[in-house]
């Protein structure tokens, strides 16, 4: 057992042709599942009801035993280990959380440490530490689960699963029973936590949006327990492996793809900026080189003031004659989908992009966004073709598709 919480290293997880066939059933619930989850990553099992995603997850801690094939945890077969010992070292979070109603929050969190025979003082300080980690007041340890809200119970469930700092966590629709607003908050909190803890996580959900948000990799399972595709979210959205995946990720997958990127990730348009009183000749020259043929009037701090009208350039020096306000102003760290939404809301084809201190760095246009989607698609397809062992086939050729 690691003495210092938060210090145990994550372990890789590997499914090797893992199959579950229930007695009396002719179709396997999980059919020859093979995939690797690198240490410290979140792998999401997603798919419709009956696709075997929960079964696949429960095979890891032997809540369900494998019929054939194997699952390796840190290189060791789970079959070699006693189920109880195995489970005590795997965090387990389920949708209904399953807190013990007759035990206080502190006792609930201490479940596995008690099983492992930790000393009282160590358990007590670990409980406080975990409550803080999940953002709950330490006084809450004396309460009973029935006295907590759904969101608080969910946090306690996560704290309980992390109690002995297991290298691997299994999470079965952990946010499924939470209202959308709190779910979003808990997802974000959990991602922050994971950035710190770096556990190897198997996360089960039926919600493709949640899968895209939470997963480093996504395993899409289809009915019959067959793996349809195993890929990072971006790849899943740009290049679905088959019609099932395409259908499952939804017709709006290009838009979902935008949710994965920030404005800074794509090629922005160059924009000619100018200040009031500046020589118009210089501005005209810059305008010829810029992607956008309308100059942007900025202040001394290079903060956008508005799009300059033709009349502003008629004299020798720039006059502050605006054709339209510089709206919407987009930030480099904005999610691309949100930025596109802003553009659409203002009925604008482009908007100035500013950095964290408000200086203009370029412009985001709808064309730039659609170009980025096309590029991403070409990249993924190109990568796929390189994999298919045709060295002369340059990925650039596929760009024409977009």
């Amino acid at each position, binding site marked *: 057992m690691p003495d210092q919480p938060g210090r145990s290293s994550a372990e890789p997880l590997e499914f090797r042709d893992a199959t579950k066939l229930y007695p009396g059933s002719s179709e396997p619930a999980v059919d020859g599942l093979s995939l690797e989850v690198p240490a410290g990553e979140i792998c999401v099992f997603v798919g419709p009801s009956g696709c075997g995603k929960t079964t696949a997850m429960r095979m890891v801690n032997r809540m369900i035993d494998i019929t054939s094939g194997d699952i390796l945890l840190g290189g060791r077969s789970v079959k070699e280990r006693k189920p109880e010992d195995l489970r005590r070292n795997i965090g387990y979070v389920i949708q*209904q959380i*399953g807190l013990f109603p007759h035990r206080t929050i502190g006792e609930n969190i201490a479940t596995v440490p008690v099983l492992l025979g930790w000393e009282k003082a160590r358990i007590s300080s670990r409980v406080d530490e975990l409550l803080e980690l999940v953002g709950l007041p330490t006084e809450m340890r004396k309460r*009973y689960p029935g006295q907590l809200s759904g969101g608080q119970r969910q946090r306690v469930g996560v704290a309980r699963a992390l109690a002995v700092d297991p290298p691997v966590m299994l999470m079965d629709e952990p946010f499924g029973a939470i209202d959308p607003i709190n779910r979003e908050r808990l997802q974000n909190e959990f991602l922050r936590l994971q950035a710190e803890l770096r556990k190897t996580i198997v996360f089960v959900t039926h919600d493709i949006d949640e899968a895209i948000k939470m997963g480093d990799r996504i395993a899409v399972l289809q009915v019959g327990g067959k793996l349809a595709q195993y890929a990072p979210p971006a790849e899943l959205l740009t290049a679905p492996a088959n019609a099932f995946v395409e259908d499952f990720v939804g017709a709006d997958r290009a838009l979902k793809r935008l949710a994965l990127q920030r404005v800074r990730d794509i090629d922005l348009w160059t924009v000619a900026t100018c200040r009031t009183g500046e020589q118009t000749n210089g501005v005209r020259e810059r305008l010829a080189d810029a992607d956008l043929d309308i100059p942007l009037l900025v202040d001394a701090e290079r903060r956008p003031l508005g799009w300059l009208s033709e009349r502003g350039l008629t004299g020798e020096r720039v006059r502050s004659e605006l054709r339209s306000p510089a709206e919407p102003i987009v930030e480099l760290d904005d999610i691309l989908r949100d930025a596109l939404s802003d553009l659409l809301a203002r009925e604008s084809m482009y908007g100035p992009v500013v950095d964290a201190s408000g200086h203009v760095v370029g412009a985001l246009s709808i064309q730039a966004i659609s170009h980025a989607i096309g590029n991403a698609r070409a990249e993924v397809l190109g990568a796929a073709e390189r994999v298919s062992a045709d060295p002369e086939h340059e990925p650039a050729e596929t760009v024409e598709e977009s």
Partner: protein
Amino acid sequence: MSLIAQSGGFLRDRTGDSGCPSNNGICLGWMVDHLDRYWSPFLEHVVITLIPLTIGFAIALSMGLLAHRQKWLITPLTGFTSAIYTIPSISSFLLLLPITGRGNDTAIIALTAYTLVIIFRNVITGLAGVPQHAVDAARGMGLTNRQLLFRIELPLALPEIIAGLRIAAATTVGLAAFAYLAGAGGLGANIDADIDFRGNVLVCGVILTLLAATLDFIVLSIQRLLTPWRRAAA
């Protein structure tokens, strides 16, 4: 029937009384003066109530735990205990007499048998009512079956189990009033000895009611003590 006849002589004794008892009335003065003659039957009644409850609880709980592990046993055990329960108490006392003879043993055996169905059913219901997700989480965290039973399932089934014990207690207090038919003691003999005398019947009734209420209160207090989470959550 010689025992009843003998004790009936003492129990029926109304010498030194004024007119009220001879009219079979409700005689408060007489009741107060003669409470002592109910003391030892009362103690006997307590004994033939508590012993069957204790033994019955132990047997029914064991049966319940067994059936919880081996689900197929639930139906036959429920059937068996229910069948016992349908035998009228008076006939069961009389049926047991040739086998176990007159005395407390017979009464205790019969009364124990009657508690089984009530407690057994509540043990089964209680264990079945434990939230499935708590059981799943417990197993998923690596509790062994034994730890699961004693740390999670039994504590959570406790309110239901104790509810069964309360019903069994009240029922046994009442049924034990027939135990005198098997030659055991208890307040039943006092009632039977002078059943026309309303004062006598009333005293016995009040004592039995108080006994049942006290037992209920004690069991309920134990439950409240053991299940602090139920009050906290409310």
